[in-house]
């Protein structure tokens, strides 16, 4: 082996190492992006306004805390009065569970499953009534019920904000 050939060999080995290093860098970047993307989604949080109301056929007042709910409901559901029993603000991340106990002993639970450009996918369980998943945009009002309670009916409303 001549000196020139040895030099050439070293040069070739040096050159051969650069593509390998580039590939490693690119792969590392891809791995970083791959692991980073879910983390960004998991960081999403949803604020849900949960209201438990009691509807009654008897004429009466509409609780001002649920004026917007009443205005939307009265076009679809007939009732005489609406009283807010509980109003709760839930701040949930993906797969976090939030909810409340109803006056009749049953529970309502909400779990955000996904948030993306199309909206949020929420899993909601109203114990004794339904198990549902809804794809909603921000400020889309969801009303679940009723459940008989005393002389009236319990209704749960959820309004997500994200």
């Amino acid at each position, binding site marked *: 082996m001549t000196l020139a050939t040895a030099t050439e060999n070293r040069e070739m080995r040096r050159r051969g190492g650069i593509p390998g290093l580039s590939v490693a860098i690119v792969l590392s970047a891809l791995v970083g992006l791959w692991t980073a993307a879910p983390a960004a989604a998991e960081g999403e949080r949803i604020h849900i306004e949960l209201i438990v109301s009691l509807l009654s056929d008897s004429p009466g007042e509409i609780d001002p805390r649920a004026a917007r709910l009443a205005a939307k409901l009265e076009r679809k559901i007939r009732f005489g009065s609406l009283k807010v029993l509980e109003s709760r603000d839930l701040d949930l991340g993906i797969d976090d569970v939030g909810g409340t106990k109803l006056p009749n002993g049953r529970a309502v639970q909400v779990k955000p499953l996904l948030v993306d450009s199309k909206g949020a996918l929420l899993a909601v369980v109203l114990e004794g009534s339904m198990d549902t998943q*809804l794809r909603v945009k921000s400020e889309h009002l969801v009303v679940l019920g009723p459940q*008989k309670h005393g002389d009236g009916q319990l209704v749960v409303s959820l309004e997500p904000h994200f």
Partner: protein
Amino acid sequence: MTDDERLTLEAYHDGELGGLARWRMERRLARSSQLRAELDELRNQRDLLGTLDEAWDEPGPAEVEGNWAAIAVALPAIDAQVDAAPVSPRAEASEPAGAPEWLRWRWAAPVAAAAAALALAIVVGRTPPAPEVPLAASAPIASGGAVRYLDTAGRSVMVIEEAQEDLTILWMMDEA
């Protein structure tokens, strides 16, 4: 459903609605599972009536012509029988003994089929529309609205989707 609504739905089914009316009906169908059920019922009824029409094998012109020709051939023999009979010529002529068997019974099958089809059409036409039964769901729902899955353990639930108002109502019918 009112009579006007039913007429509009039937017009939609028959493709008789104009652009704006058809668009309105399609929006209502997208929002109302009851309306979609009514449309399906209407389609089923129309399909049934269509099969009844196909079941009745109406004789074509060639067959009719052939039948008259056969009658013309048999007439002289019938006339001879009538002339020869001393008593009750009308009773004899009502059942011509010389007429072939197939001539007597040729029309029996289509007449019977027509009678059966008519009777069935009357029954179907008088069948009251399906009662407005709300949805009983326990499955994924491909409604295009907010609800993607709903399980009520078989209990009836009414789903009201108002996309323009950003509102979805899930209403248990047996608690209402």
